[in-house]
């Protein structure tokens, strides 16, 4: 670890240091350290079992680490926050398999995701404000689902569901988006459009993308972290990490 690392605890949006997690003797995460700056686009790659999903589970409060520091915005200890709590802090998560509310319309999916009071009483009394209606229109345009707005989300194609879920993430207006293999199952054209979209989103929001597809990572054109056996193997531009011999050994192959 570089000496400057611990000094970053307060300036980073997300600061992970020395985190470990063991499941039944299997070390899913092994003293992992990782930093995300505000507005940054950051790709995480690694073979199956490298600990990518566990890392996301730890950030979003689904899994509690055995050891280490997970700090949000330099002040909140994320190891004591649950899923809903992490969402309320401004962490949005997109799963690998698209998960939208299938018996709700596309529009209602976005409405549920919009940043608003999440309490029971507040939602019982909630009315759609004109600002919210405008925001929904904008998001529908952004994810190109305007003509499907009144259709049930269950009837969308796989790619459209992925996009709807990205739209829902944006509706939350999170400070950090965690995106798990967004290009999985997409056509080449959809993949490139998704990369474009994520690049457009970054800047206003920090975006961490977990991905297998190297073409897609290349299109993202951003900093890349390579995970292997729960720890960071290499970090830097795609060109840089591709040249690291260990990375070539374990992941890229020859």
């Amino acid at each position, binding site marked *: 670890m570089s000496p400057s690392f611990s000094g970053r605890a307060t300036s980073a949006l997300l600061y992970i240091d020395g985190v470990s997690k063991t499941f039944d003797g299997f070390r899913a995460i092994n003293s992992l350290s990782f930093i995300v700056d505000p507005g940054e686009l950051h790709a995480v790659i690694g073979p199956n079992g490298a600990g990518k999903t566990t890392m996301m589970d730890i950030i979003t409060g689904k899994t509690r680490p055995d050891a280490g520091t997970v700090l949000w915005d330099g002040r909140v200890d994320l190891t004591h926050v649950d899923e809903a709590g992490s969402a309320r802090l401004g962490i949005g998560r997109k799963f690998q398999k698209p998960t939208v509310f299938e018996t709700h319309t596309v529009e209602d999916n976005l409405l549920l995701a919009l940043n608003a009071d999440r309490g029971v009483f507040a939602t019982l009394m909630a009315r759609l404000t004109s600002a919210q209606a405008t925001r929904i229109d904008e998001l529908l345009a952004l994810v190109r689902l305007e003509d499907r707005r009144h259709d049930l989300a269950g*009837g969308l194609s796989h790619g459209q569901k992925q996009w709807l879920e990205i739209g829902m993430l944006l509706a939350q207006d999170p400070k950090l988006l965690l995106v798990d293999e967004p290009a999985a199952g997409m056509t080449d054209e959809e993949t490139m459009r998704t990369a474009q979209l994520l690049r457009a989103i970054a800047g206003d929001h920090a975006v961490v993308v977990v991905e297998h597809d190297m073409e897609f990572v290349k299109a993202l054109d951003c900093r890349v972290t390579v995970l292997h056996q729960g720890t960071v193997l290499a970090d830097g531009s795609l060109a840089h990490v591709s040249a690291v011999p260990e990375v070539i050994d374990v992941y890229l192959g020859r």
Partner: protein
Amino acid sequence: MILRALDRRSWIFLGLLFIVVVAVPVANLALEPGSAGHLPSFAVSLFGKYLCYALLAVALDLVWGYCGILSLGHGAFFALGGYAMGMHLMREIGPRGVYGDPVLPDFMVFLNWDALPWFWYGFDMFWFALAMTMIVPGLLAFVFGWLAFRSRVTGVYLSIITQALTYALMLAFFRNEMGFGGNNGLTDFKDVLGFDLQSDATRAGLFVLSGLALAAGFILCRVIVTSKAGKVLVAVRDAESRTRFLGYRVESYKLFVFTVSAMLAGLAGALYTPQVGIINPSEFSPANSIEIVIMVALGGRGTLVGAALGAIVVGAANTLLTGWFPDFWLFVLGGLFVAVTLFMPRGILGVLDRRGPMRGGAPVGLRRKEA
């Protein structure tokens, strides 16, 4: 808010309910016995009983159809409401009991008790008893739900513990020491608020009240399910963890809806007891709770109207079949459940409703499992 919550189907349902609530008492009270169209008094109470089941089924549909909580213990909340009302009716008997004790109900005299247990205090006041018919089930549901939902007990495990809950209560209420009349329960009621429970006018009045309670409970549930909170409930049903990651505290929503549902079930029980004339521990039996589930499944989950319809169909079938072939009712009920599950996953309303694909709040039958 209420008008916004009612769609066309809701109005048809409320319209039909209104007609029934007016027509049944008229046919019983205004038409001479023996004349065409006269309805015998026993039928008024019988139909009133169906309306209580309908309210109970609507309450279950709120948690099962919309939030995916399959409670196999809703009969417990119904029975607790019934007991709370029964306790008031027992105290109304006063010195007219067989033993003539001015305060103690007959069964307590029989057990040689010399004072009223503390938990019977206050039930001499109607308003107190009426409040308790909803507070007691609501409180039980709140405590039970708080423990279960916070620990993220879901699916079949939750169903099993709700079933255990009602079974445990049944065993407890069978015990004489509990102070609720043991095996015999509470019965021999005389009057309520001074109205003779045996008179036709009182029976008709209770029938009308049951109809009004059903309408009010239905409208309340519609308001909930058509609000944004209702959309959250459906979201929880279809993709619970997604809903959490959007920032909703799923357990709060479940707790809210479970408690409201239990209170409505308690109200249904409170109206049931005076019309049936008895409340005993068999009302807690697990089979009763399963029957409610079948009512909702038959009518159509996640529709509210279907739940009420299913309750009336199952209630009527129960009355007819136990009259004709007493031994076959449980087989018919089981067969009905299998048939509905296999051939009518969206229930009677699903068959009637051919307007195309289901909307938000539609039945769970065809949804995909969450990963």
